């Protein structure tokens, strides 16, 4: 993957396939240049055996195929930039109420092998376009400030009949996020 934001898009698609109703995408950057990416969903989760195998591309069998290369690619991006990847998951079979998966990856952004974050706004817009019925909370905190988008707030304004996937709404979302990123540059 050329951009870390593409890995984020890819991993979040796993949450969509897992039937998530809420997806949290969080990016936290500290003063020292450590970046922590967290993607949390309330989908059907995975059992412990599957969690063990999803990071290994050669362990992928037909039943786990929907995970495929996505996690291994994120793991690679993280480890080559001096970080690590972890997955915590509670399967629906174990706990139907609190099930879900959290994928966490860290990166040293000062590493020469750090994959640039790229266009994360594009990633958020594409996710909402693909599944406007899901609620997304996007948070990107940096030492300079925070960029935030909560689709629940937008839904409160738009009501039931207008989908977040409408082009004009997506354009508003893109504009809002871009403005917030611009403000951080000042």
């Amino acid at each position, binding site marked *: 993957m050329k951009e870390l934001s593409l890995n984020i898009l890819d991993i979040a698609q796993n949450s969509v396939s897992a039937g998530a109703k809420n997806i949290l995408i969080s990016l936290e950057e500290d003063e020292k240049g450590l970046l922590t990416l967290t993607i949390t969903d309330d989908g059907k989760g995975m059992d412990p055996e599957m969690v063990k195998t999803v990071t290994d591309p050669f362990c992928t069998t037909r039943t786990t195929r929907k995970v495929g290369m996505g996690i291994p690619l994120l793991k690679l991006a993280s480890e080559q930039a001096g970080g690590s990847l972890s997955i915590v998951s509670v399967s629906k079979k174990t706990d139907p109420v609190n099930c879900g998966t959290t994928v966490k990856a860290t990166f040293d952004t000062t590493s020469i092998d750090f994959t640039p974050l790229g266009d994360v706004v594009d*990633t958020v817009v594409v996710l909402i376009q693909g599944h406007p019925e899901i609620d997304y909370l996007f948070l990107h905190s940096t030492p300079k400030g925070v960029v935030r988008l909560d689709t629940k707030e937008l839904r409160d304004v738009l009501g039931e009949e207008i989908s977040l996937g409408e*082009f004009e709404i997506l354009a508003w979302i893109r504009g809002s996020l871009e403005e917030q990123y611009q403000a951080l540059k000042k």
Partner: protein
Amino acid sequence: MKTLAELEAIRERMRGKVAVREASDNTIRIVVGMATCGIAAGARPVLNAVAEEVSNQGLSENVTVTQTGCIGLCQYEPIVEVYQQGKEKVTYVKMDADKAKKVVEQHIKGGKVVAEYTITNYKK
């Protein structure tokens, strides 16, 4: 500044339009492959170009743009499929943003398949 008040204004503008769309039966469905293979090959800008061009050409009322997973033709990604009632599915392969715009303009709006980008043309 993008405010929630602005979003409210968009809602008021759109209310009537959404109802019209639901009544229409003659829709064209454009599907972009967005699995790991598609994303790595550059599907994200293709999807955005399709969605933008559909809106720019004023086709939103009859055209839906959706995403799908891997269809097993990873070497041909980014792939865009066009479904239209009563017509055979058209599969465009090795797409980029410019090609995607051309497809929307010539095929979706103009009704003429862009043969040079189709998988049939590639496999020859």
